[in-house]
């Protein structure tokens, strides 16, 4: 209990209220430091109301005096400064343009802007910047289909498959320029359905032949030999020996990688034949949207560097 100097002589201050003639209430005020701290919070609150958004009224709220400015760029590339009342979204925008990490990123972007792909790849630091920035862009734009690490999806259903970008099998070619143009313009990949042309045994024979190209164990050699003549239809795109054609995006059928149906994952040769038959019967329709409008040319360049090194090219 606190005592004030005046009542040291055995006197205790009371509030002055008296009940029943002699009942009094001691006056024991709050500790001084506590009280001042409390007044301090009140002053803080008032200052806060003045500076920052705080009170709701009608269908809006007090905006406060504090402002945040940041630069915006419109579609024509014109920049203008926007000043808003203090809010975390504006602070985020400001951070994205002037925080130390944002400035460091700008510095690196300027550094790689005029470098050729070969120059970027020749320096571990620029390559590392390009791949880590590319990885972030990949996560935003590509990972939904191609997976977070570019691993793609290989399913038994061709419509549910998305090419794996981490292997060294490039359907459309692995030059930086080709990757840039594919990202910019998108890809429309299609294989016609040959169900009307090949049916029954003929279809099975052709499938056996296709599987024999990549030396799948258990292929019926006889059937494959019978199917070889039918492959002439396929050779227009896939090449006479099945090596594919990157110009038109026809996959190589002789390697171990399967891009659209999970042949390596099939249980036995019969299942594999079924999968290949399905593709020949129904054809393939695969589309990748064009990203030229969503990403800047500079971003696409970095993305290309990232994608190309995924498989170790």
């Amino acid at each position, binding site marked *: 209990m606190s*005592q004030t100097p005046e009542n040291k002589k055995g006197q205790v201050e009371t509030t002055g209220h008296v009940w029943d003639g002699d009942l009094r209430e001691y006056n024991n005020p709050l500790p001084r430091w506590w009280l001042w701290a409390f007044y301090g919070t009140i002053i803080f609150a008032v200052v806060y109301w003045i500076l920052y958004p705080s009170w709701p009224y009608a269908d809006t709220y007090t905006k406060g005096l504090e402002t945040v400015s940041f630069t915006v760029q419109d579609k024509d590339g014109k920049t203008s400064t926007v000043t808003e009342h203090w809010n975390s979204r504006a602070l985020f925008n400001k951070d994205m343009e002037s925080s130390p990490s944002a400035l460091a990123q700008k510095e690196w972007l300027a550094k790689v802007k005029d470098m050729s792909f070969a120059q970027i*790849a020749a320096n571990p630091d620029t390559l*590392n910047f390009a791949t880590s920035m590319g990885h972030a862009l990949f996560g935003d734009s590509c990972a939904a289909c191609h997976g977070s690490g570019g691993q793609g999806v290989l399913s038994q259903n061709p419509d549910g498959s998305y090419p794996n970008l981490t292997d060294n099998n490039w359907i459309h070619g692995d030059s930086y320029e080709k990757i840039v143009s594919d990202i910019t313009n998108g890809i429309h990949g299609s294989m016609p359905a040959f169900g009307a042309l090949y049916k029954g045994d003929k279809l099975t024979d052709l499938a056996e032949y296709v599987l024999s190209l990549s030396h799948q164990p258990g292929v019926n050699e006889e059937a494959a030999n019978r199917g070889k003549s039918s492959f002439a239809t396929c050779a227009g795109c896939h090449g006479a020996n099945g090596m594919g054609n990157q110009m038109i995006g026809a996959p190589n059928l002789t390697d171990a990688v399967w891009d659209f149906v999970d042949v390596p994952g099939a249980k036995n040769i019969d299942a594999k034949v079924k999968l290949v038959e399905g593709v020949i019967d129904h054809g393939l329709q695969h589309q990748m949207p064009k990203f030229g409008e969503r990403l800047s040319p500079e971003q696409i360049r970095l993305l290309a560097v990232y994608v190309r090194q995924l498989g*170790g090219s």
Partner: protein
Amino acid sequence: MSSVDLLEQEPELYQPREPIHPKSIKGRFRRFKTTIMMLAYAIFFLLPWLRWARPVGPDQAVLFDIPGRRFYIFDLVIHPQDIFLLGGFLILAAWLLFFVTGLVGRAFCGYFCFQTLWTDLFMKVEYWVQGDRNKRLKLGRQPWNLEKIGKKGLTLLIWTAIAFWTGFTFTAYWADTPQLFVSFFTMHAVSAAYITTGILTATTLVAAGFAREQICIYMCPYARFQAVMFDKETLLVSYDAQRGEGSSGRKPLQKGLMALEERHAAGTGDCIDCNLCVQVCPTGIDIRDGLQLACISCGLCIDACDEIMTKRGWPDGLIRYASELEIETGTKPSLLKFRTIGYGVGTLLVSALMIYGVLSIKPADFSVRQVRQPLFVLMSDGSIQNNYELKINNKEQTPLDLKLEVEGVKNAEVSISGGFKDLHIPADGTRNYHVHVRVPGSSGVSRQVIIFKLIDEQGKFPPIQQETSFNYK
């Protein structure tokens, strides 16, 4: 408001502090204290200004660079990975404190503690501006007139200047000092610099100007626990009560008790009760009451008593450094006792470990992270590829040229994104590499351990290695 009588008076919780105005004194302990203070201040105040050429990094001798995550101490550069050395340093400091305390009592408190140093300096300022003890006491009793306001104001001004420079110097250890100096006074420094300097200025002013001995008595934990390291053989600032009190107590100099022989004949002790030892005490205690918590072992009372004894031509050492045992029995105990040997061995051991720790700081370290999306890739020729992210950190002040070797997986073909063969890590720098390890599918590879080994081409240090796993089905 009214009041009621209360028969029982409640006790006061706090005793109001009586300001202590120690008398200034000359003597060997005073000289020792002044020397230590000059030395400590020379180091503390000048060190941040010392330049030091380094191949990489700032050219400041001592710099604790928090944003850059480096501690620069002359030629030693401490990286975050080696921060355990800080733990070792603190343990060493603790053992050294135990050792010294076991041997000579609270020597740290009396001569080295910054509370003692700064209080000493602030008292010196008081002495210069307001005069010695008696003048200060008189000034304290005086009503607030022009002289008092002037002297007290000037004292406060000089104190604030010292406190501010103390705060600024502390801040200077965490930034480039000349740059900070310019930016600080042109109001361009980061807010952390102003906040740190402000806090240090305020605490220095309060602790050394006003709180003083109360810090030692009420706040300092060392004051409390150093006492448990005392034993009967620990050297303490002691009043020789047998000699000072005699058989009939101490008495001031008076007729018939002027010479030593007369006093001894009357059974009076050698202490003439001049109170000088009390007047010079910075914590305001009477050493003749025996060992007490508030004594910081500064030895100024020894100086005071010796001065009186010498003046009278009596042997000095009525107050002296002596252990409890020595005061009781008169025999000087050996300093080689179990406790000092134990603490000494502990101190040496920790010092040796520290030196070993500093000398065996790894020149480089690296981490290997297996890319797990996907865990493995089937390549077109049927081989299996795993990908790894390699992060190599060169802690040396010179560039490193390393070679990567992979062990544990047969027929592994290793390639690095960008086609790099030599891994050139710039001085005090970090580089990241993407590594591809490819194994023929027919080689019967499965999930197994793979070891990444970095070999220094100049052979400056033995290969360093990291273990991770190679995955397939």
